[in-house]
């Protein structure tokens, strides 16, 4: 009898869950309706690094407005796809943290709502706002800006090189094993890290429209500068300055071991070098082709779901709270990423490393977030790797440009 009783309970529980799941499939959007209108809770997706800071900010927000903030921790890399998949079902969050280059996909999928910064827009660094804009519309509140720069081991190289060639000469004079380090992938090089050199030849990926946004129809990568850059890649590959076998991990390891005076990287790799006792200086990226070397800048920020039932509360939260100096500074202190709010950035610039990256960032351009960029990534790196490894520079580069154009045209 006892056995049977237990079984029945189990069966009951199972069926209950089963019918819940079944209804859950379609009732989701409806349950969201139920909680909407009361404005009782705001669901925010954040990654583990940022969750701690947001927790305090959320508590303050709740105390002031009575709106509860539910923080849901997600793996940063998973947020984009899950957000795109969940918003249409109505189960998605009200606010997500994300990177600006996801924006194109978000807008094309219709999952984000525009954000009105009003007069607050002037308080942010220009590049942050540009990055958070898509087709003239601002979709997010930026909170951090990061870009790569040249990290110099001051013990091995005492002064800042003006050009790429000068840097290589200085690197050779230092007598270390490598004159210059940058992490590449044997398969796909690393267009992100090589981009400043490409721009120094006057070959951006896309041309820009009048309002400063990227124009997918104006593919610039295959212009004359592009050809020169490709030829340069081939030369550097042949000379061994660029080596696709030195992966990101290897480059970091070798710089920390003092095997090179120069290392092209972002702020994320600097703490490890400082801990290893290396005295570092942050320099502008030396130009290889004569023009200014402009790296890509990555902006992180907060987006509001287009199906949020708490749109006003969500806007209030991200614009007036996440955009406040206090929160931006707190986020900087935890993550070490330069704040997007000018006032917070100025405070953070007391640290020479942050200031150094910030100075380089003044010349930086936002990484294109238009969906056409997907087609560029697909061909860009493998072509660079092939050229560095001795492929014919001009024909490969032109072939790539043609392939990208075909892929964008769809």
């Amino acid at each position, binding site marked *: 009898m006892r056995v049977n009783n237990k079984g029945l309970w*189990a069966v009951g529980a199972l069926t209950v869950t089963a019918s819940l799941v079944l209804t859950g499939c379609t009732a989701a959007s409806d349950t969201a309706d139920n909680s909407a209108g009361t404005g009782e809770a705001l669901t925010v997706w954040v990654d583990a690094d940022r969750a701690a800071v947001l927790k305090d900010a959320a508590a303050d927000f709740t105390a002031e407005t009575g709106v509860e903030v539910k923080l849901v921790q997600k793996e940063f890399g998973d947020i984009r796809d899950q957000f795109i998949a969940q918003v249409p079902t109505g189960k998605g969050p009200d606010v997500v943290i994300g990177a600006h280059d996801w924006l194109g996909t978000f807008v094309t999928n219709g999952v984000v709502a525009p954000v009105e910064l009003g007069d607050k827009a002037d308080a942010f660094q220009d590049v942050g706002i540009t990055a958070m804009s898509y087709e003239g519309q601002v979709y997010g509140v930026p909170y951090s800006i990061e870009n790569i720069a040249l990290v110099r081991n001051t013990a091995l190289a005492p002064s800042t090189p003006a050009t790429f060639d000068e840097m290589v000469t200085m690197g050779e004079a230092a007598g270390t094993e490598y004159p210059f380090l940058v992490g590449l992938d044997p398969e796909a090089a690393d267009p992100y890290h090589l981009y400043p050199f490409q721009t120094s030849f006057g070959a951006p990926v896309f041309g820009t429209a009048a309002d400063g946004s990227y124009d997918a129809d104006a593919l610039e990568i295959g212009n004359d500068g592009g050809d020169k850059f490709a030829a340069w890649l081939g030369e550097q590959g042949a000379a061994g300055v660029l080596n696709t076998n030195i992966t990101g991990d290897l480059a970091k390891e070798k710089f920390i071991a003092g095997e090179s005076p120069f290392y092209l990287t972002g702020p994320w790799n600097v703490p490890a070098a400082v801990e290893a006792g290396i005295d570092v200086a942050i320099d502008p990226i030396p130009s290889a082709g004569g023009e200014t070397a402009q790296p890509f800048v990555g902006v992180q920020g907060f987006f509001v779901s287009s199906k949020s039932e708490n749109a006003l509360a969500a806007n209030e939260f991200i614009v007036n709270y996440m955009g406040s100096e206090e929160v931006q500074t707190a986020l900087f202190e935890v993550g070490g990423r330069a704040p997007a709010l000018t006032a917070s950035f100025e405070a953070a610039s007391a640290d020479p490393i942050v200031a150094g990256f910030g100075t380089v960032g003044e010349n930086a351009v936002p990484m294109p977030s238009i969906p056409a960029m997907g087609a560029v990534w697909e061909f860009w790196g493998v072509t660079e790797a092939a050229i560095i490894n001795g492929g014919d520079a001009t024909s490969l580069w032109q072939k790539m440009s043609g392939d990208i154009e075909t892929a964008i045209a769809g």
Partner: protein
Amino acid sequence: MTTPPETDSGPIRQSARARRATRIADAASGGWKVVAAKILGLGVVDAIAIYALFVLVRSESWLVAGLVVAVTLLVNWIYFSRGKLPAKYLAPGLIFLAIFQIFVLLYSGYIAFTNYGTGHNSTKADAVNSLLLSSQNRVADSPNYRLTVLEQLGELSFLVTEPDGSVSIGGNERPLKEVQNAQLEGGVAVGLDGYTSLGFQDILGKQTEIAAISVPLTDDPNDGMLRTPDGSSAFLYTSSLEYDEAAGTMRDTNSGTVYSDIGTGAFTSDAGQELLPGWKIEVGLDNFVRAFSEDSIRGPLISVTVWTFAFAFLSVFTTFALGLFLAIVFNDKRMKSRKYYRIIMILPYAFPGFLSALVWAGMMNQEFGFINVVLLGGAEVPWLTNEWLAKGSILFVNLWLGFPYMFLVTTGALQAIPEELTEAATVDGAKPWAIFRFVKLPLLLVSVAPLLISSFAFNFNNFNLIYMLTNGGPRDVSAGVNVGATDILISMVYKVAFVGANRDYGLASAFAIIIFILVAGIAIISFRRTKSLEELN
């Protein structure tokens, strides 16, 4: 129905079992406690089902509502009727099987017949809503209007203070009108006689409604509308898109272009320009047609399929050959310290496959890898970047990962073959090779063949290894498609569905169905063959 199986235990024990079975059967169908528990349990289930029905009927999901009714009735019938013991035990499992396996399978199958992917991931209503939202452009250099939301008889109005200090009131589709008698606080109008001012809490309670309000600045809609993003300030917007609900078309108010729904899941202009986001529609067999007709897909699909078969077959063959060889060697009693060798042999099997693949990728680095630097004295062999060497490397690493499994399986199978057969063959004058070829191998294959088939199916979809070792590379840069020399079908599907900004879940699902058909076909044919092996005995 509950009679215990006949066993060779004595008649006394058997009758004891039978008694216990009868008792359980009785208990299952009677006794007031059981009935009470049943009613309680099913009551909970029914209550939840009824709640679910309310929700479903309100959202007009008739199909799911029907399913809930059917399942609930079935569950009640099963547990209230006497007997039906198997059904009582099986029902929950079957319900879960239906939800978590069959539904998921059918749903991914269904995706293959849609255009689900970037730009087409929701309904038409969502797309319209989202297009209209993003077409709201703030009028350049327009001021920030301070706003108080007012309510009168359930109707909401905006009380705005213009930058010059004048105060106006307006509502949804009611243009702004200047008012004189507003209560001011610090230069900002906060209230008006006859109206209730809403506090932040009240605004939150009605935020959906308030966010939807647009107050025309004047009678001319081209002057723009005031909308509020946060309830305390308003901005002037103009919309560049207009939705004509009756015609189902979008009109660009600036250029006058009309975008209409032409059945492709996006508003399209006459010139063929699409407005994104679009929405998800069923496209029939389009994805399958594309897989076989579009040159940029068909070319790689064929070469990838050939390599997938070669990879799966060679992986099974090499691992089986090496595993069998080692099993025979270690099965020989003349071999000393077999135990220790066996433990070492099994080690690769103990490491997680994807981790090993990653370690191997590092060891095969052309310039800094262990193999080239230490074993080959600095030779720069492009293990992973040359097309054919990469294919070889993949097979080699998979051999390293896979032979312990085959070793284990064949050792077991070899030990199950009776010694007498070997002895009898030896007495008949057979040489060791003949004994192996005509006695041991056929007997071995009978028991191992199904495992070889499943191993083939596993390697056919061995995503971990490819992804971690080469990620499908090296790419042929002249090919113009994102497919590398070592991509197998499943890694190609992954690239179609999840790599890059433009995902195409529909096409990826179509590929998945094609792969399923291939694997299922091979399995069916191979199992038929295995049957003929069994007839050997």
